[in-house]
């Protein structure tokens, strides 16, 4: 039992160390690349533009449900007028960054991990090495920097559509006063709140992109089975680990922000 725990601990620490090294190389490799703007634009399209529809749909329905749930809770305390504030702060501080990140991981992160994993199995990454092209700089760095840009923007979209969703249920469906809804938001939401939410999105973008790329890049080492099933295994791991990391980092960042 103790030896098993020790093995797992060593494995965890060594994997964490490998991820740290990989992250460092991914972070600094972009400037050495050629056609940086082109690569960044393509990565922004994959991570950003392609994720807009899913972000908007999930954001809208989250706002709709949140408006409904909070309305009935607030009614018990005769505080329906606080609906706008409650919806906006919940979304901006917690739900927006977390849900957006999970949605992007589901759509772009899994695709990223699978694509790099397949490239590894098809010896395309080795081919890059033999062509003197830095594979991490070529495959990972543009996506990492694109995620840094795309995550906060998509989170902002989520926040806006989510707050509008809350308005639809609260005001249009359940009869909360529209002036109260918007005024409460205006009064309660500070620039600091928005900044705090976007900091989370920024961190989630870095962490999830690195986890997904790392799992794909080392699929030949990380997977228990080689080939297509190995890629499927590392892709699943990429999504699961990223989702866990989002929640862990959400807690850590929230604790830090509340302590300030």
């Amino acid at each position, binding site marked *: 039992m103790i030896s098993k725990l020790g093995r797992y601990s060593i494995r965890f620490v060594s994997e964490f160390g490998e991820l740290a090294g990989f992250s460092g190389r991914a972070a600094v490799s972009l400037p050495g*690349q*050629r*056609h940086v703007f082109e690569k960044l634009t393509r990565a922004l399209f994959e991570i950003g533009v392609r994720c807009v529809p899913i972000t908007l749909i999930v954001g809208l329905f989250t706002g709709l449900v949140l408006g409904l749930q909070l309305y009935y809770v607030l009614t018990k305390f005769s505080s329906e007028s606080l609906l706008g504030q409650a919806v906006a702060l919940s979304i901006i501080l917690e739900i927006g960054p977390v849900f957006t990140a999970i949605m992007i991981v589901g759509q772009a992160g899994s695709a990223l991990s699978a694509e790099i994993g397949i*490239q590894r199995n*098809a*010896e*395309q990454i*080795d*081919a890059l*090495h*033999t*062509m*003197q*092209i830095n594979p991490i700089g*070529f495959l990972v760095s543009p996506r990492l920097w694109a995620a840094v840009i795309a995550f906060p923007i998509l989170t902002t979209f989520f926040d806006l559509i989510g707050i509008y969703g809350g308005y639809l249920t609260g005001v249009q469906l359940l009869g909360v006063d529209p002036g109260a809804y918007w005024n409460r938001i205006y009064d309660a939401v500070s620039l600091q709140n928005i900044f705090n939410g976007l900091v989370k999105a920024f961190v989630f973008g870095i962490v999830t992109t690195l986890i997904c790329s790392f799992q794909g890049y080392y699929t030949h080492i990380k997977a228990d089975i080689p080939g297509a099933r190995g890629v499927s295994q590392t892709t699943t791991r990429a999504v699961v680990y990223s989702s866990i990391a989002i929640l862990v980092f959400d807690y850590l960042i929230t604790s830090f922000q509340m302590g300030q």
Partner: protein
Amino acid sequence: MSNDSHLQLKGLSKAFGSQTVLDRIDLDIPLGEHTTVIGKSGTGKSVLLKCISGLLASDSGTISASGKQGIPSCSYMFQQNALFDSMTVEENVALPLRETGKAGKEEIEQRVGDMLAQLELSPASKKYPAEISGGMKKRAALARALITSPEIILFDEPTTGLDPQRKYAVFDMIRDYRKRFGFTVVMVSHDVPEVFEISDHIAWLDEGKIKFWGTPKQLAENTPDALKPFLNPKLASA
């Protein structure tokens, strides 16, 4: 031939855990010629190529060429071609120039166009690897390997999974283009005796060591007993 015109491997070793794959290999590969490394599956032929190319770091030993440490410019042809599926043939061939060289867009287009024409790939230039035949994929991979004008091309079992007709077509292609472009070929293959026709030298890798080195003619005249079952599998089963 002097050492100046050789790719020299000295004491090259590689182990994975407790398994020694290459055991202090010494090999002088003449530059400008075609050397084929033969041997049973799993004897470390591909590992040898990967050590030469730098894809794998050897545990010990040195590689030098023309008296200098390291190897000259070298390209690698992978078993499955390793073409990027999401890029057209043209983009695949241009990739090393676009990402590493200092050539401008027009020069790259010119060089890629010329290369595709020389390898009779111009009609397929805008197609994706999935849309072309196996032979064309091999030529596209060769075009990508040749575009940087390397001195050495390493071929890792280039005929794996091909029918006999295509196998000969690939061997002919390697022979023809080597004559035309003058690069050195180091090839790994178990296609015996077919490879003897295109090779200048044969190296037999067995149990981590080079157990035979010579021309195909020398091999035919003086075949080591242990190699006979590999060259003629019927002997092994008799």
